[in-house]
């Protein structure tokens, strides 16, 4: 018997929405149950009957976007070589930083009198918006008017982990909800059967660790669901060895009936 072939097949099926809904009914059973439990456990004093923590909520402004795709590219080429045109920096290229600029700043690896280094790439304005792009992005230049570029962001976190946590949670300290957790918390999800907030990670992990998609002090449901590169994309997604789809179905049906019987 070819188990691996079988599980691959199952995995593919699981990726379809309908299948997730049908086969993982037990999960939704828990969510329905959650309504009872949440009202008891969280008990925030509201009589609200929200059964699903992800149920879509009204935004403050009319929505244009349907979903958020956020690429966090730690270790990617610097913005100084791509989007962030710094003519002043070019002027000081090779010279030490003017002392008045670094009066109160300690740099980790760099001496105070180290020389400045401007991008070696040429920048030009593109599109109607006149956005500055470097020559490293010739193709993006053609569609630059479709982009919103926010060059005004600053940070004073000089180390990787705090910097990443700052980018993703707004605080250099661990323990705050990530952007994705907030979005999911604030807006909910139309989907009743797929994770509202998923995380895809390439190459090695990130310095900030799971804090980058954590839920901080928000309920755990709002935490990002990491899809993995090896094994199941979601932990424990596939049935245990040789437990066939039918056996899993039988188990879930029995579970559902017994749970209902008891409640």
């Amino acid at each position, binding site marked *: 018997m070819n188990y691996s072939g079988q599980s691959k097949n199952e995995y593919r099926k699981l990726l379809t929405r309908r299948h997730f809904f049908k086969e993982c009914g037990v999960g939704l059973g828990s969510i329905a149950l959650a309504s009872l439990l949440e009202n008891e456990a969280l008990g925030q004093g509201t009589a609200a009957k929200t059964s699903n923590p992800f149920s879509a909520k009204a935004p403050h402004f009319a929505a244009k976007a349907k979903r958020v795709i956020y690429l966090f590219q730690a270790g990617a080429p610097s913005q100084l070589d791509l989007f962030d045109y710094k003519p002043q920096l070019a002027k000081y290229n090779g010279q030490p930083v003017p002392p008045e600029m670094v009066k109160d700043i300690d740099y980790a690896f760099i001496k105070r009198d180290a020389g400045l280094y401007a991008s070696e790439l040429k920048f030009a304005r593109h599109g109607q918006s006149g956005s500055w792009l470097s020559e490293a992005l010739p193709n993006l230049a053609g569609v630059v008017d479709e982009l919103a570029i926010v060059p005004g962001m600053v940070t004073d976190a000089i180390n990787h982990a705090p910097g990443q946590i700052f980018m993703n949670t707004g605080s250099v300290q661990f323990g705050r909800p990530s952007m994705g957790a907030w979005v999911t918390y604030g807006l909910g999800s139309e989907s009743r059967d797929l994770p509202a907030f998923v995380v895809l990670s390439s190459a090695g992990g990130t310095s900030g660790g799971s804090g980058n998609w954590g839920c901080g002090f928000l309920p755990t449901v709002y935490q990002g669901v990491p899809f993995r590169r090896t094994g199941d994309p979601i932990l424990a997604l596939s049935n245990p060895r040789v437990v066939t789809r039918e056996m899993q179905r039988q188990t879930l049906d029995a579970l559902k009936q017994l*749970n209902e019987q008891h409640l």
Partner: protein
Amino acid sequence: MRKRISRLLLLICAPALLWLHSTSAQQAPQAAVDYARDIQPILAAHCIRCHGPERQMARLRLDSMDAIARVVTPGNSQDSRLIVRVSGEGGEPRMPLGAPPLSTEQIRSLRAWIDGSAGATVAAPPNASKAATHWAFRQPVLAKAPPVKNAAWVRNPVDQFILAEIEKQSLIVSPEAARTTLIRRLYLDITGLPPSLSEVDAFLADRRPDAYDHLVEKLLASPHYGERWGRWWLDAARYADTNGFEKDRPRSIWPYRDWVIRAFNNDLPFDQFTIEQLAGDLLPGATLDQKIATGFLRNSMLNEEGGVDPEQFRVEGVIDRVDAVGKAFLGLTVACAQCHNHKFDPIAQREYYQFYAFLNSDDEPELEVPGEGVTRKREEIRKEIAKIEDDLRAKTTDIRNRLDGWERALKSDSRQWVPLRDAEIFASFGVKFDRLEDGSFMARGDNSTSNNYRVAATTELKDISEIRLELLTDPNLPRGGPGRANDGSLYVTELSAEAAPRDPAIPATKIGFDAVRSDFARAGFPPSNVIDGDMKTHWSSDAGPGRRNQDRTLFFTLAKPVGFDGGTKLTFQISQKFDEAIDLAGGKPNIGRFRLSIRTGRLASTDSSVANAADGAPGIVSPRVERLLAIPPAERTAEQEREIFSAYRTQVKEWQDSNRRIDDLMKDWPYGPTTLAVSERPRSRETRIFRRGDWKRPDTLVTPGVPAVMHPMAKDAPRNRLGLARWIVDKQNPLTARVIVNRVWQQYFGQGLVLTAEDFGTRAAPPSHPGLLDYLAIEFQKSDWSFKHLHQLIVTSATYRQSSRIRPGDLERDPTNQYLARAPRLRVEAETVWDVALAVSGLLSPKIGGPSVYPPIPDGVLNLAYGRPLDWPVSKGEDRYRRGMYTFWKRSLPYPNLLVFDAPQGDLSCTRRIRSNTPLQALTTLNDTVFVQAAQGFGLRIWKEGGATDTSRMKYAFRVATGRSPSAIELKRLLEFLHEQRGNFTGRTAAAVYVSSADLNSLPPDVDLHQVAPWTMVARLLLNLDETITKE
């Protein structure tokens, strides 16, 4: 930059933005308006931002009674400015400006207050502080339990308070839960484990009227009680097994966890429990246990990333400690006042830093916890050595004279060393130094590479003939140092020096050395290695087990004295360059703490005994022995005399054999595990207010102190952690007892009497049962702060013993169950989900305490660790099946099976777990390896122990999982499932084997797995029942 590989992290959120959602909260009108309960929260939420400590628009503050009097006319709400403005009458802009208006109910409350009791409150003395107005800052008052109609229901005062509210709301109490439910509830609540079948049977058979009370007593005496409630405390203590941040290296602090478990099992009174965790080291005659307890403070995260400023993260650590103490003991969000005065609670920024100052003056030692075996072995070695030394003494008749002569010779050189005090120091890779009182430097920060230290100093001395490099121990170094390797050892590769006159025009000249000597030389690492110009040879401080962690000295004799008129600039370069071969103990063996000194002139005396001393360390003793010798002989203890003798004998040539025997004995010197603790610095650090909370902007100096709104510290109390701890558990403290009993209550009923367990401040909703909260707080104090008494009180109440079944109409009448006319029905906590599965399966190890363990972890998880896949040496034997609380907790990558059930991450103090229910949880208990193994264990157990028939096995299985017998319908459905599964395995022996056994290499003997497999499926089903992981 190391990071060449681009790391791509894709975060997708798919929110829907469609359904409008109406949230018109219903609020019942209040009968009598109370300022603290009803009015102040409104002001705090809507007004204080612009009319409070931060900003006083229109020069108005609404955070103190005398200020409020400006806008309130008692008895006349119609003419009160406050009402005019918030209702937007009279043509003036409505308050709060630019924010949603107050609700009708809120304005009604304000009016009712002004027309009613405002007169009395406003007339209070103008300096009446907030303490008088916010309920939580007032001392608990023992109110008379309110009268109830159904007095027969009441078992203890808890019930009286609960029932009074229930009757007020016209609700009806639930009947007592079934005995099978009660025993399981008690077991889960008190020990965190389900009862075994025999324990259930014994309880059902116990017909004594007080059988229940006996059970409570038995469970509170169980050693598993300490585990269950210890874990409860560890949430607040933010326990974790790693340092956090990018590097997230492992730390050893599990002895603290063991201490917590022991403390609960011994019912250590909570005041003592608090004092030991915050200041155990400061207690007179502090025991090792009391020092271990201070690990509470050390649970802060630590950033070891390359290039961090160590001071920044030391400060962050203290900030975290303030936060944890605030949350865990005081229920106050003190942390809000780090950057500015607290917006809602009466805590000024200055007071934050006064509080911070208590926690800002500590060393951070790694404490050894030797344990019995280690202590015994060490004692044996010491005895053996003493025997040899006594023999040496005995056979040397003129020993006194020889010792005196040796001592005289050592002291013959009276030239003074002058430490280079105003030196500057620089190291690469962001390593920073603390400058200590004695002129020594202490390295901090990144220690992942070997490093060079450059020191520059100016001196007025001339004729400088010798340089001394002292390598010093320090409590903040691993095992006490003097090095930064994990065992505290260090290696010096080269030391070079230059001298120059003050005049910058004249270039520096290299200083030549004649000789270098040390008090210690390890074979193959002579001191001469540090001046041989060879970067491949080193001097090592590592004197082997039991001897390596002590001060050492290197003396450099200059070939030609230096010193210029008008001052001399000296520059030292201390090189450390390690190859893999000497990085054995882990951690780079850089110098931890050191001091440079110089002296002038030549040695006057030429006492021959100095020159004739033994090889390796001619006539030099370690700084420690030097200090002992400085004590006048008459004042030395026997122990000190022995140590001096031990130093002497190593320098006597003819005693080589004895010395070698002692060296051999010392090779077996054992070490125990370590734990993190704090100890008070000899001189306290100064604390300044950080402007806007920025550690780089220190401002006014502050001294330790407590917030003025609270009770004052005792006059004679020390202004240190001990004073702080005693202040926290002072019976005058209105918060501590309330905060703790509230969290215990929360653990039983799913929500606290105050919902925000972490915040008892003015923004928090008032308690649902203020009288009960105060009663419990006072009772807790009166019982000598006994947790066990508190538990006993709660679980023997009729309130606790109610059924959790939801009756028709219950959810409409009391959706959040705040009135407790029924028991809560709650999914058990993360660790308990795990423990229940293992206990039911029969796999659970009952072992208590010890280092964290590594149960199997899914592959993909390890790859998410930063840098390289996480090192996860899966535990063998019983450690594979320990209780969930012992699972190694990596902060950046917490164990997924526990995290998914809402175990706190451990980054910050957590006093209220969120309880969520997600599909991922269902997937975990269904499919995860550990849970599948539990099903396999359980299946086998059912087959072996469940009797001979399908029905008997099924009944057995169901009872083991849920504690009760299945109903006829349930039994029928389960047997149907069994038959279904039998069909699945017909003719499929291989599948049966795979399903029923975890390890194909050690299949259970004497059983037909073909028969077992359907039961494995049943076991899996039962482990996934909602009821199995629910406290009913």
